C-alpha cells in the first residue's frame, strides 16, 4: 500500500522535500485528516460546540495521565475511551442540571487539565509529554496512517447515515423532535464522534491547537457559503489548501507543522471575513 503511494509521489512530485519518507507520510496524513476535520468542523461550528471540542482536547491530558498510571506504553486507546466517557458525561450533565453549557464545560475543562498536569508532573517529568501539547505530524507512521484512514471512513459513513439528523438537531431541537428524531441520542452520538476524532488526532496536531483546526476552516467556509453543499466543499478545500501550504512551509521554515497549518487556516478565515458582506 505505502509503496504505491511513495512511488506515486516520486512520480508526480519530483521535488527535494518530497524525497523524504516522513514528508510523504505527512502529506498523506494531511490529505486524510484534512477532509475529516473539515467535515466534522462544519457541524461543530453549526452546533456551537467549539468550546466543547476544546474541552475534549484539553482533557486528553488526563487521558494520557490515566494511561501512564496504568503503565501503558501507548495511551491512545485509554485517551479515546476517557474522552468518550467525558463527552457522554458532559451531555448528560447538560440535560440533567439544566445549567448553562459553557459553565459546565468551563468547569470540566479546567478540572481535567489540572488533574492531568498534577498526575503527569509527579516527580518533575512533565517535559516528556510536551509532544502532546504541540503535536508532531512528521512523526506519523504508516500504521497510524491506516488508523487515520479508518477514522476518516468512519466519519464519512456517519455523515452518510446521520447527516440530515445532525443538521435538523443543529437547526432547532424542537423541530427535529417533531420530525421524529431522537434528539438526545443524536446529540450524544455527535459528541462521541467529535471526541473520538479529536482525541485520535491529538498526538499529531497537539492539544493547544487542535480545536483551531476543527473550527477555522468551517468558520471560514461559513462566511462565504449559502447552502450546505457549498459549506462542505469550501471547508474541505480550505483545510486541504492550508494543510498542504502549512506542511511545505513548516518544512522550509523548520517550524511545528500543526501550528503552521492552523496559521494558514486563520489567514483563510480572515480573508473570507472580508468577503462576507457580499454573501450574507
Amino acid at each position: 500500500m505505502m509503496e504505491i503511494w511513495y512511488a506515486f509521489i516520486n512520480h508526480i512530485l519530483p521535488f527535494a522535500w518530497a524525497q523524504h519518507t516522513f514528508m510523504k507520510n505527512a502529506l498523506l496524513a494531511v490529505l486524510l485528516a484534512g477532509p475529516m476535520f473539515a467535515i466534522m468542523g462544519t457541524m461543530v461550528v453549526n452546533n456551537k460546540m467549539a468550546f466543547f471540542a476544546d474541552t475534549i482536547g484539553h482533557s486528553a491530558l488526563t487521558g494520557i495521565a490515566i494511561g501512564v498510571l496504568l503503565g501503558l506504553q501507548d495511551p491512545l486507546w485509554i485517551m479515546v475511551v476517557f474522552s468518550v466517557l467525558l463527552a457522554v458525561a458532559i451531555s448528560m450533565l447538560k440535560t440533567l442540571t439544566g445549567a448553562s453549557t459553557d459553565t459546565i464545560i468551563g468547569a470540566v475543562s479546567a478540572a481535567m487539565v489540572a488533574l492531568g498536569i498534577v498526575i503527569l508532573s509527579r516527580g518533575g517529568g512533565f517535559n516528556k509529554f510536551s509532544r502532546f501539547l504541540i503535536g508532531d505530524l512528521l512523526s506519523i507512521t504508516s500504521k497510524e496512517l491506516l488508523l487515520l484512514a479508518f477514522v476518516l471512513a468512519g466519519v464519512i459513513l456517519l455523515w452518510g447515515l446521520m447527516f440530515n439528523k445532525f443538521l435538523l438537531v443543529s437547526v432547532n431541537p424542537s423541530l427535529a423532535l417533531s420530525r421524529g428524531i431522537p434528539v438526545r441520542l443524536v446529540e450524544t452520538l455527535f459528541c462521541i464522534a467529535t471526541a473520538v476524532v479529536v482525541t485520535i488526532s491529538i498526538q499529531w496536531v497537539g492539544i493547544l491547537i487542535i480545536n483551531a483546526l476543527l473550527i477555522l476552516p468551517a468558520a471560514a467556509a461559513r462566511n462565504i457559503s449559502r447552502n450546505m453543499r457549498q459549506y462542505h466543499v469550501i471547508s474541505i478545500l480550505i483545510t486541504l489548501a492550508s494543510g498542504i501550504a502549512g506542511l511545505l512551509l513548516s518544512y522550509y521554515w523548520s517550524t511545528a507543522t500543526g501550528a503552521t497549518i492552523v496559521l494558514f487556516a486563520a489567514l483563510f478565515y480572515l480573508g473570507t471575513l472580508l468577503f462576507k458582506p457580499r454573501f450574507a
Partner: protein
Amino acid sequence: MAHTGAVQDFPGKSCGLCCTKLKNFGVTIGKTEILSGIDLHIHCGELTALVGPNGAGKTTLLRAVLGEISHTGELSFLDAGDCRRKPVVGYVPQRLDFDPGSPISVLDLFSACLSSRPVCLGHSRRLRERASASLAGVQAQHLLDRRLGDLSGGELQRVLLALALDPNPDLLLLDEPVSGIDVQGKELFYDLVSDLRQQYDLSIILVSHDWSVVSCYADRIVLLDRTVQCCGSPQEVFANEKILRAYGPAVKEETGQFRLKKPRVIQRGGGVNG
C-alpha cells in the same frame, strides 16, 4: 415515512374519525406543577384554539404533546380504523430559534426533513420538485434557494408551515405562529391554515393571544389556565360572562384597574427585599 402511507389511504376530505385524546394529562417540571387534570378530545377537521393568560401552560402543553417534556396521564391517538398508532405531528414554533448565520437554504431544510440522502451532497431533482410544490401551497416557492437566515418573519413562518405539512400530519401544532408579523402576513397565514382543514385530514391546535383571530377561525376554543377552564365553540365561550370577565379581551375597566394596582405591587416587593 411509514406513517405517510397510512395517511394517504384517505386523502382529501377529513374523515372526522381520527381523534387525539388527552386523559388526566399533566406536566410537572421540577417541583412546579404546570398543568394537571386535562381531559381533551381533538377530532380531525377541527381547528382547536388554545387560549389563556401568559404562564397558563399553553406552550408547555404543546411541548408535552410533542414529547419534548415528559407528562403524566395518557396521550393517545386513534386513526380512522380506530387503531392506536403514533401520529405524524407537524409543528410550527412561535419563533424558530436558529442561528441566522448558518449556511442552510430552505431546500436544505426540506431535504433534511424528507430524505435520508445527506444534504451536503446536494439534492435530487425529485426532492427539489416536492419541496417546490410544498412551498407553492403556502405561496412561497420563490424562497426555495434562499438562505434560511435571510427570510423575513412572515416568510419563515410560511416555510415552516409548508414543512409541517409534508408529510401530511395527523396533528398540526401551531404555537402563536404569527406573533410579531404584520397584518397582511397574519391574514395570509390564517387563510392558509383555515383552508388546510378542508384540504387535509388533520386536527389543528392553535395557540393564540389574538381573540379576533380565534373567534374568526376556530371551531372550538379551549381556555387553559393550569387546567382546562372552559371548552366549547366560540359562541359558547363568548356567551360565558364569568370566563370573559376573567380572561376575555372586552373588559376594559379591568385592564385599567390592573394598571392602577401595578405600582403598589412593585412597592410591596421592594419592601420584602429590604
